[in-house]
């Protein structure tokens, strides 16, 4: 059973991709909600500097110090950006955009100068290649397990544990940092913890998906889930589920067309978000369009009821409460007037006489009109 798993590269790739996706998206949910998800962009680029510096210092590409160095570089980026922002000389986005390209450029320069022959190829770092995961294995028991599977497994576990343990605190700090501080939680510390884990996850994800695609995995699944639900825990779990689905679907599509696995996973995530954007149940474009139309139609029916109610029983009723009057007095085009009357009739609020087109309120219609005009009478 285990052997079947470890000897199946396909399953292995998908598992690594899924681990990266889940690890990234549970953290991403809070970053997206806080409006600081672009720190991911900055972190995932500047992590390269940490990797290069640690390589130059230790001469090893795969030492555990990598995680430390890269996480430090990631936090440094955030710290420098916040420092620049707090000087109030420039806005946060400009600060972020000033810091991380510089650190990335520095890393590129160092690679070009000192690390040409090692496997820190800038392209690979940027794009990643999941297929190479198989080349670097560690023995566990009798199986050769890809190193990134082990690393990502540990990192994903840490991320999920962090979010699970501090869910309440994270929730509070995300939605009301002021209250969290007043209650004695440490929202800033929590935030830096979140970014620290993001940096660590970025390093782990580097080999598998590369820097830019890591951004996709952090931001896109939670963002898509955010379009679909209003509950935080659903958003966190939904983001994870979307990431899982995207890693499986992305792997399949990548094999089908023989293209980059990580890239395809990110593209599938993007497509899911696009679908959520258009088809989401409450906040989707289509749902909002339909809701708008329904509300407009309801408002028209209410207007008709009120119009009929106002003139009911006065001397102009004969003239006003006729289908023709709607065109003249409410300025409704004939087509619209017919539609509104038909709608009101279908709802049992209005009846019309066939000849003369005189309109009458039913009991329910009168009640509804009274509710609009005299809401205090409502029982």
């Amino acid at each position, binding site marked *: 059973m285990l052997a079947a798993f470890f000897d199946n590269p396909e399953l292995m790739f998908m598992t690594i991709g899924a681990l990266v996706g889940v690890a990234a998206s549970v953290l991403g949910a809070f970053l997206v909600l806080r*409006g600081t998800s672009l720190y991911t962009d900055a972190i995932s680029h500047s992590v390269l500097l940490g990797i290069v510096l640690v390589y130059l210092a230790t001469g090893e590409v795969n030492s555990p110090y990598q995680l430390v160095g890269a996480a430090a570089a990631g936090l440094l980026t955030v710290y420098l950006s916040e420092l620049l922002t707090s000087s109030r000389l420039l806005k946060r*986005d400009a600060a972020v955009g000033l810091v991380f390209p510089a650190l990335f450029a520095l890393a590129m320069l160092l690679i070009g100068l000192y690390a040409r022959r090692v496997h820190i190829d800038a392209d690979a770092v*940027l794009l990643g290649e999941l297929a190479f995961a198989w080349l670097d294995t560690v023995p566990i028991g009798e199986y050769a397990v890809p190193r990134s599977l082990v690393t990502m497994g540990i990192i994903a576990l840490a991320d999920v544990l962090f979010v699970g343990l501090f869910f309440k605190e994270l929730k509070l700090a995300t939605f009301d940092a002021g209250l969290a501080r007043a209650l004695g939680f440490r929202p800033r510390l929590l935030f830096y913890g979140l970014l620290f884990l993001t940096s660590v996850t970025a390093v782990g994800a580097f080999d598998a998906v590369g820097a830019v695609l890591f951004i996709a995995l952090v931001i896109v699944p939670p963002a898509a889930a955010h379009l679909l639900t209003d509950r935080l825990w659903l958003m966190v779990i939904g983001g994870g589920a979307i990431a899982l689905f995207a890693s499986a679907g992305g792997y399949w599509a990548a094999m089908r067309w023989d293209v980059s696995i990580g890239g395809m996973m990110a593209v599938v995530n993007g497509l899911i978000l696009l679908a959520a954007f258009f088809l989401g149940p409450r906040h989707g474009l289509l749902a909002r369009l339909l809701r708008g139309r329904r509300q407009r139609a309801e408002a028209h029916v209410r207007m008709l009821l009120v119009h009929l109610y106002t003139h009911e029983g006065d001397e102009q009723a004969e003239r006003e409460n006729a289908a023709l009057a709607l065109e003249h007095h409410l300025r409704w085009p004939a087509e619209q007037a017919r539609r509104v009357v038909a709608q009101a009739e279908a709802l049992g609020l209005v009846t019309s006489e066939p000849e003369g087109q005189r309109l009458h309120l039913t009991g329910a219609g009168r009640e509804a009109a009274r509710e609009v005009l005299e809401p205090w009478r409502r029982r």
Partner: protein
Amino acid sequence: MPGLEILSDFTVRNALIGASLLGVVSGVLGTFAVLREQSLIGDAVSHAALPGICLGFLIAGTREIWPLALGALAAGAAAALAVLALTRYSRLKPDASLGTVLSTFFAAGTVLLTYIQNRQLPGQAGLDSFLFGQAAAVLPEDLWFMGAVALVALGAVGLFWKEFKLVAFDPGFARSLGLPVALIEAALTAMIALAVVVGLQLVGVVLMVAMVIAPGTAARQWCRRLETTVLLAAGFGAASGILGTMLSLLGRGLATGPLIVLVATGLAVVSLLFAPGRGAAWKAAARRRARAAIEDRHILAGMWQLAQSHGDAAYAVEQGMLDAMYGAGARGALERLERQGLVEPVTHMSEEGLHWRLTPEGRKAAAAEPLSPSPTVRGE
């Protein structure tokens, strides 16, 4: 440092001309992006150029600059509009919209790139050099193209100067005047794609965002008018381009793109720190000076009051007493006052240590400025 004759070298000359064109265009357009707080849109637009380049190659089948740049332009503009649409029509915050578009477009780019590479299509070699740029690959016909794009971008800015300026500073007022603000904003954002196209071969899509942000940020520190800011940003941009290219000639393995970016960032950091009036270091120094001046005046007033209450204009105050009243800063303040000739040290009684008294000028200054002698309030 290589001699000047290297400037006549064909490749170097092309790279230098290209780099300065890039600097000018990105400086001018970037200034507007920075002022409109849309800095990172440049990041999305530049990353989005990658799928555009690949599509351009797939459609045209050659590695010529025109189809690739057209693809980059179209994809960049599409990304900019996608960011605007996601921000406006969904509940995502701007940062999430931006991150989503940036990463998804770039992912599509890598997918297309691997598609092209794995099929060994003819003429695809070096397509990935657009990731980080490759200055040595700039050809004269590319320069013509860059020049044309630069002309279009700068021409548009010149033509719509008034409108762009108004939208950058006060979109609400612009709307009340009946200007199509949404259209102008979309145009300004999409035009960043023009700068990206110019920078493709030199800096590449990944680092382009720095060229959009850094020169504008740097120029903003020195100027108070949009006209001068834009001109200076163009200058800073061109200077970064030229300087970065020259530095890359110094040794093997020095990549041009990263160097250009580092020079631009360096200029921005220096400007942020030292620009007169707005620079952080400048402000800190001004704050220190102001605090010192207040301390000086407190001590002057304190000594004046002591002198008056002792009925002796030349009353000598013990250093220790001033220390106790004004804290550790008193010593430095007294030295400053001595340099100004307002106080002088006296040996009052040999065993009692240093004393200070007001000079005639000091008395005049203290009398002219009646200030409360209360010691500066210090934190615990």
